[in-house]
């Protein structure tokens, strides 16, 4: 923390003019170009940038972990060992020299706590192994230290936890175990590569506060890689902004947020701050007319079905949910992983058949139907009115189909349009979502993530639907693209009179985009209300915790670390 970092402390790590290149086919991708920075004891330096900025590659270069065929082509990475400087670049990726740095002097934690621990070795085995790699102590002593570390990262029952496997832990617990492993040999530097990105926001808050606390206790230097300006504001002392492999700006965290110097930094902060305030939207009409009304909906999955087919218990994925979506309205559903929000969206399309309750839907022709009870055939006719947009624009588009085939597919199956009419319609749709009209002949891989999500949206609106269920449509996108996609969706809403059910874990996009919001936890809606009220005056304790845990992109609103 700023107060803890000794001024003018001798840097423990000095990176000078680092360059990393990836030969691809016959060209070379310059992933990192002439990046220089220093890191001092007790200091947190945040490396921030969007995807492809080279921040992760920079972090990996420090431990010589750049994946082949990438390699460090220039620069120095000087580590102060206390008895002189060691150039990590000269150590190479194999051999004893670099192995003594890895884990011993510089440790690293990774983004995916789900897959960063071996699934077939116990937590204890992996920590003890790390200790024994670097220190000549007995297995018993190493085990004792591992237990103490697990206790330190607040894993309950540390002795027993040593003998458990990573898949027996939740995501947050796995990341705690990973941190314990990284700290097992008292490294001077901890590199954290998006360590909280895959975690729920309340878990993220816990992990960030744990990291802060450990850093304060040990005087470690932390290099923290993130794309989230909110997290930066929460934990950084200094910030380095990267863009396309180059350093854009390096500054004290307060200076960066309050007086950004470079246009890119300003634009980045602008996109973040734009999401901090709700987008202007017309007032709701006094008389609402519903398009869908969910009442007392439940979906229970049987668990542990025994020999006689009698389930021992039920997983209540949706447990008595009631929610109304009005015409032209955007209703947000927010919740952490496992809250049932995605399942709720899918149940509306009958991807799952609910076990109880009703989903009344008013069709375009004015007829009211209960989606929960429709037959497969009747449901089919609804697919032209109710469409879905998925989270991952990389896997929700078939890579073997051209964009034209992808967008025209719903037209082909639901209308009698001729090939010529479909061509015209697809060109029109592409233009409407801000893509070139002649993009139809190309394949999805030719488009970036943001463009692919636009293709998904074009596919969803091809049939002029009335209700779109959008499941985390912006979560896989960089922050500068998020509000663009949301603005596009808003424009389409005004044009077509669409209603959205907008599912997200991200409070800021919900606040930006939605009229009303429902907060879900364990399959139930704990609170529902106007988006302004939920975000600013949440009533339910869970909503309060959730809103408080969201890292605000303002270093002056920092949560204080627990004493």
């Amino acid at each position, binding site marked *: 923390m700023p107060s803890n970092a000794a001024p003018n402390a001798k840097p423990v790590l000095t990176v000078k003019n680092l360059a990393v290149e990836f030969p691809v086919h016959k060209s070379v991708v310059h992933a990192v170009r002439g990046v220089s920075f220093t890191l001092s004891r007790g200091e947190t330096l945040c490396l921030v940038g969007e995807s492809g900025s080279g921040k992760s590659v920079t972090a990996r270069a420090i431990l010589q972990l750049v994946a082949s065929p990438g390699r460090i082509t220039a620069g120095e990475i000087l580590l102060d060992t206390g008895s002189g400087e060691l150039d990590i670049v000269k150590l190479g990726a194999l051999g004893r020299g670099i192995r003594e740095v890895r884990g011993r002097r510089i440790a690293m934690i990774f983004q995916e706590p789900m897959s960063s*621990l071996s699934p*077939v070795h116990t937590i204890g085995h992996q920590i003890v192994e790390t200790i024994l790699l670097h220190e000549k102590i007995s297995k018993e002593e190493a085990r004792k230290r591992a237990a103490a570390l697990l206790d330190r990262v607040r894993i309950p029952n540390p002795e027993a936890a040593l003998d458990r496997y990573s898949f027996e832990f939740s995501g947050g617990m796995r990341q705690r175990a990973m941190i314990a492993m990284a700290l097992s040999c008292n490294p001077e530097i901890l590199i954290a590569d998006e360590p909280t990105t895959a975690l729920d926001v309340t878990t993220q808050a816990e992990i960030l506060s744990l990291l802060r606390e450990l850093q304060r206790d040990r005087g470690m230097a932390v290099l923290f890689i993130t794309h989230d300006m909110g997290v930066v504001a929460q934990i950084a002392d200094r910030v380095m902004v990267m863009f396309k492999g180059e350093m854009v700006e390096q500054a004290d965290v307060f200076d960066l947020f309050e007086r950004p110097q470079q246009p890119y930094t300003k634009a980045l902060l602008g996109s973040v701050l734009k999401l901090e305030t709700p987008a202007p939207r017309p007032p709701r009409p006094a008389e609402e007319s519903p398009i869908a009304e969910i009442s007392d909906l439940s979906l229970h999955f049987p668990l542990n079905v025994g020999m006689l087919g009698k389930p021992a218990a039920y997983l209540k994925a949706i447990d008595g949910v009631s929610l109304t979506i009005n015409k032209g309205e955007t209703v947000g559903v927010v919740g952490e992983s496992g809250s049932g929000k995605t399942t709720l969206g899918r149940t509306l399309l009958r991807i799952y058949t609910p076990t109880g309750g009703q989903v009344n839907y008013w069709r375009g022709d004015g007829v009211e139907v209960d989606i929960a009870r429709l037959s497969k055939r009747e449901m089919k006719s609804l697919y032209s009115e109710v469409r879905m947009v998925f989270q991952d624009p990389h896997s929700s588009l078939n890579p073997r189909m051209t964009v034209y085939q992808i967008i025209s597919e719903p037209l082909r199956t639901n209308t009698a349009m001729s090939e010529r009419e479909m061509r015209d319609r697809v060109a029109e749709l592409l233009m409407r979502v801000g893509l070139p009209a002649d993009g139809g002949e190309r394949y999805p891989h030719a488009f970036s993530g943001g463009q692919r999500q636009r293709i998904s949206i074009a596919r969803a609106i091809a049939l002029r639907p009335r209700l779109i269920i959008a499941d985390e449509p912006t979560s896989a996108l960089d922050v500068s693209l998020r509000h663009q996609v949301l603005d596009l969706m808003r424009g389409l809403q005004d044009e077509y009179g669409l209603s959205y059910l907008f599912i997200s874990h991200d409070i800021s996009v919900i606040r930006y985009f939605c009229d009303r919001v429902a907060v879900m936890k364990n399959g139930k809606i704990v609170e529902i209300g106007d988006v302004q009220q939920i975000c600013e005056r949440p009533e339910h304790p869970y909503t309060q915790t959730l809103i408080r845990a969201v890292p605000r992109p303002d270093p002056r609103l920092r949560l204080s670390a627990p004493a």
Partner: protein
Amino acid sequence: MLLYILKRIAGMVPAMVAISILAFTVIQLPPGDYVSTYAAQIAQSGETVDSAVLNSLRERYGLGENVVVQYFKWIGGIVTRGDFGDSFEWNQPVTELIWGRMGMTALISVLTLILMWAFSLPIGIYSAVRQYSVTDYVATAFAFLAMATPNFLLAIVLLYASTMWFGVSVGGLFSPAFENAPLSLAKIWDFVTHAWIPIFVLGTAGTASLIRVMRANLLDELHKPYVEAARSKGMPEGRLILTYPVRVALNPFISTVGWVLPALISGELVVSTVLNLPTAGPLLLQALKSQDMYLAGAFILLSGGLVLIGTLVSDILLAISDPRIRLS
């Protein structure tokens, strides 16, 4: 763990029942029943048939009764007395004919399987770790060639080569001198000198595909985050690869027993016929040709059982190697 094994064994029971029904269907397929075929054959050879004997046979197998009753008499005899019925072609109880041959089949199959693993595992690992190296290309070329070569062709070529060029007779599993000799070191050595040909023939294609399986599995694992995390701890590269990705990549490899074993047993039929081996295959073929149905049924039942046992072994090995299977 014990519970897991018990559950697996319980799960095998319906499969075994299904196999027995299938085997019984095969027995029932030829026109007429076993006893009338038997009587016709004896009559053909000019001998008189004692109708009392025929009646007792009918009684024993429940012939003339409902098919379900016949099935239960047949399976009941197997389960309670180990009685698989009689082979009318050999005029002997099936059990006397079958055990030695089935044992040989099992021995050859298991030996082949072990050798397949012993070769394909290291080659597959090397191929994956040094992807696109010369060794990887050589292994790949060998693998495709070996997979594409039919077993019988390989057997004939080997027979030809060893007889014509080396003057060694390699048919059978033992030299005539050792055929009926008691077990001794010399006999085992004699077996080894004979058995390598069928093992080689049977195992080549399987080894080749297992190399590919291991290579693909390991390539999937090599770039997983947990490997990078382990590397960031400072582990030496060789130890790292063997401890982490190979350990995880072994799973699909172990479960290959499930399909390798049936492939071996059916492949064994062709190879053994070509090489004239005293295993179950040629006898089954002969039994099918001469409609010796109780013998054929017994072979089908036992081969099916062998496959089930192989699957059980692979399931148990999987549970030992992967806690995710053991604990959930």
